[in-house]
């Protein structure tokens, strides 16, 4: 039955990422087998879904009992059987468009290919993260039941790392496999959501800011730079042409900035005021859609005049009509991190990959392509050889003035986080 439910989950995962990623996954040999199994098993899986849940609930109890009492949350994710020595693979879940692609062959990813050439380890790369919440929902049942999620490595944002870590779903890293760990930039080495980075290595750092379609907004590039969050949320000119992030940290972060609060340090009341501010924009039909990572098409084809955006996404668009804007009120920092879920089958391989990603030339090549901020020392030197222009790019090597406009989001305990997430979900629907 576990096989069936896993097949069902895989199938649903795949179906979630329609249609481009779906096709891409079909093209990738590793997941094809899983997809076929899912196709065969899906009818029975739907039928037995409820039974599967019960079984999991039961086995979750026994897994808990093994590590102490059934109600106590284990502090660290349970280790699975590490097959790294015999199976030279690592199953990696990442966000869409979050890795470099060979300009001559879209199916080739140089970073992954070079890793294989160096270590002999194949990376089964799947772009199945569209939002932290949705991805958490996908893996939650398996993690709660103490099962292998089928993933050895995944990239998730700061607050979700905090949540998974507090729930005991992440495996602690074995630094013996990650000698490059010492080269992390000091400011990236000890984040509040994962003290001393016991469980994570940064994949990319970046900003949550605004993306603007100049034509659709009727603005010049210079005018666009003057935009504020308040303009986006209240100016009738952009009514029904605004995309907004559905994730609590992003969405409320902008709300807090617009209402004059500090995202790094706010009260319950300020939080509620920010949510009410967003609710009002939604009720007035100012906000057209709440989105995950799937907002780019609507911005480029003019359905949005402007939207919340991740810095690198906008920088990757090769279109002078689409610009990134730091709102007058400021913007948000985010960090996406590689982590290893409990019960992963190829933990050592995953750690070797983390180590590889911390090499300055690898990190610089990745960040040159995806336009995010490298987090290891020596990346600037390495970047000189790859793309000297990138050193002037504020999204890759931001100066002090740019950094000063970016705000961190307050670190929250599990209970508050869940409360805030559900409060914001009432707005996003």
């Amino acid at each position, binding site marked *: 039955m576990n096989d069936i439910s896993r097949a069902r989950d895989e199938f*649903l995962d795949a179906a979630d990422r*329609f*249609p481009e990623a779906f096709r891409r996954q079909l093209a990738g040999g590793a997941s094809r087998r899983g997809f076929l199994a899912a196709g065969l098993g899906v009818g029975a899986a*739907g*039928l*037995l*879904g*409820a*039974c599967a*849940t*019960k079984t*999991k*609930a*039961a086995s*979750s*109890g026994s897994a808990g009992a093994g590590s102490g009492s*059934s*109600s106590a*949350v284990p502090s660290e994710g349970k280790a699975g059987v590490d097959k790294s020595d015999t199976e030279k693979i690592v199953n990696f879940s990442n966000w869409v468009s979050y890795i470099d692609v060979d300009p001559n062959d879209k199916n080739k990813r140089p970073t992954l290919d070079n890793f294989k050439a160096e270590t002999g380890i194949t990376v089964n790369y799947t772009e199945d993260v569209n939002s932290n*919440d*949705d991805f*958490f*929902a*996908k893996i*939650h*049942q398996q993690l*709660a039941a103490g099962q292998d999620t089928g993933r050895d490595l995944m990239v998730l944002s700061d607050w979700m790392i905090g949540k998974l870590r507090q*729930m005991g779903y992440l495996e602690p890293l074995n630094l013996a496999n990650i000698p490059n760990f010492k080269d992390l930039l000091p400011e990236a080495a000890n984040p509040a959501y994962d003290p001393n980075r016991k469980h994570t290595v940064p994949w990319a750092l970046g900003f949550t800011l605004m993306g603007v379609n100049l034509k*659709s907004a009727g603005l010049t590039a210079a005018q666009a730079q003057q935009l504020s969050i308040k303009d986006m949320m209240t100016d009738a000119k952009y*009514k*029904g*042409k605004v995309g907004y992030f559905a994730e609590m940290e992003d969405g409320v972060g902008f709300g807090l900035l617009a209402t004059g609060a500090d995202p790094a340090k706010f009260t319950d009341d300020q939080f509620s005021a920010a949510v009410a501010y967003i609710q009002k924009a*939604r009720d007035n*039909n100012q*906000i*057209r*859609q*709440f989105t995950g990572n799937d907002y780019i*098409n609507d911005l480029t*084809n*003019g*359905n949005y005049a402007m939207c919340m955006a991740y810095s690198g996404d906008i920088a990757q668009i090769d279109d002078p009509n689409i610009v990134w804007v730091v709102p007058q009120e400021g913007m948000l920092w985010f960090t996406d991190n590689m982590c290893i879920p409990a019960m992963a089958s190829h933990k050592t391989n995953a750690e070797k990959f983390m180590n590889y990603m911390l090499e300055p030339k690898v990190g610089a090549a990745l960040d040159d392509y995806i336009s995010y901020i490298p987090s290891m020392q020596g990346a600037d030197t390495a970047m000189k050889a790859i793309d000297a222009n990138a050193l002037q790019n504020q999204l890759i090597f931001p100066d002090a003035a740019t950094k000063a406009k970016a705000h961190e989001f307050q670190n929250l305990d599990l209970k508050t986080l869940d409360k805030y997430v559900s409060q914001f*979900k009432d*707005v*996003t*629907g």
Partner: protein
Amino acid sequence: MTAPPAAAEVVDELVPGPTAAEQRADKRVLRRRATLPYLLLAPGIIWLVVFFIVPMWSIVSTSVETGDMDTGFVLSWRWANFGDVWSQWHQQIIRSLEYSVMCTVFCLILALPLAYFIAFKAGRWKNLLMALVVAPFFTSYLIRTLAWKTILADDGWVVHTMNTLHITPLLSGMGWTYSSNSVLQTPFSVVCGMVYNFLPFTVLPIYTAMEKIDPRLHEAGQDLYASAWATFRKVTFPLALPGIVGGTLLTFIPAVGDYTNAVMLGGPKTKVIGTVIEQQMIGTGGNIPYGAALSVMLMVGTLVITLAYIKKAGTEEIV
């Protein structure tokens, strides 16, 4: 003197009774006759049990469970789950019903003339036209729905034409869209997508019913000085009614639970009950009993509406 034997005893003596062995054989035959129908029914019954009763039981029992994802769900017969989900999501349930009723009505408006034309006027183009009705099924449902995002994009020619004809302000005045120069992410675009996706389900049964109508009945109508409209109303429509009822049901029932269109073409104000169920069952909601309770509620609601409709429509022959 002994009394003469009764007639029955005489017969008994003349016709020897079945021996014990024969009686056993008879019983076997009888037993076999009694069990044979069940054996013949077995595949159907097994199918029903596996694909209907077990899942039904599973969903109903899940709907009265309590718990959470981390500790597991236990069957506690908490019927209050139904009250909870109704108070929390009745808006989405009602919205789903509204959208599917609208979708069904628009489908009928489009399908009746189309089926009529294909059945009676298309002549040798009949098969080709029917093939065209079915043709969209050769593309994936998701891709077809996604295509509507391009068709209805703000910069697309459809919206431009609608702007020129002042249809968009009209729609927004009616509350079907939210701004005067776009239609995506509104109830209008969701219903558009639904009508497009479900139209063949309405057309096919109506066409089948109409195709069976003898064209001479139309001639008879004309001979009796009925206008074309009167012929349609008095002859064609009643004869096509089973197809119309069937088509309505085939459209309405899946439309109630459909959420692909709402997710892909809708916005923050068009969330339907299918999305809520999905979120509770496998998504961020994470409360499986709530999802199950909503499914049961939706199923019962749809069933009641369907039965009422069939009763009202007064047709026994469906499709």
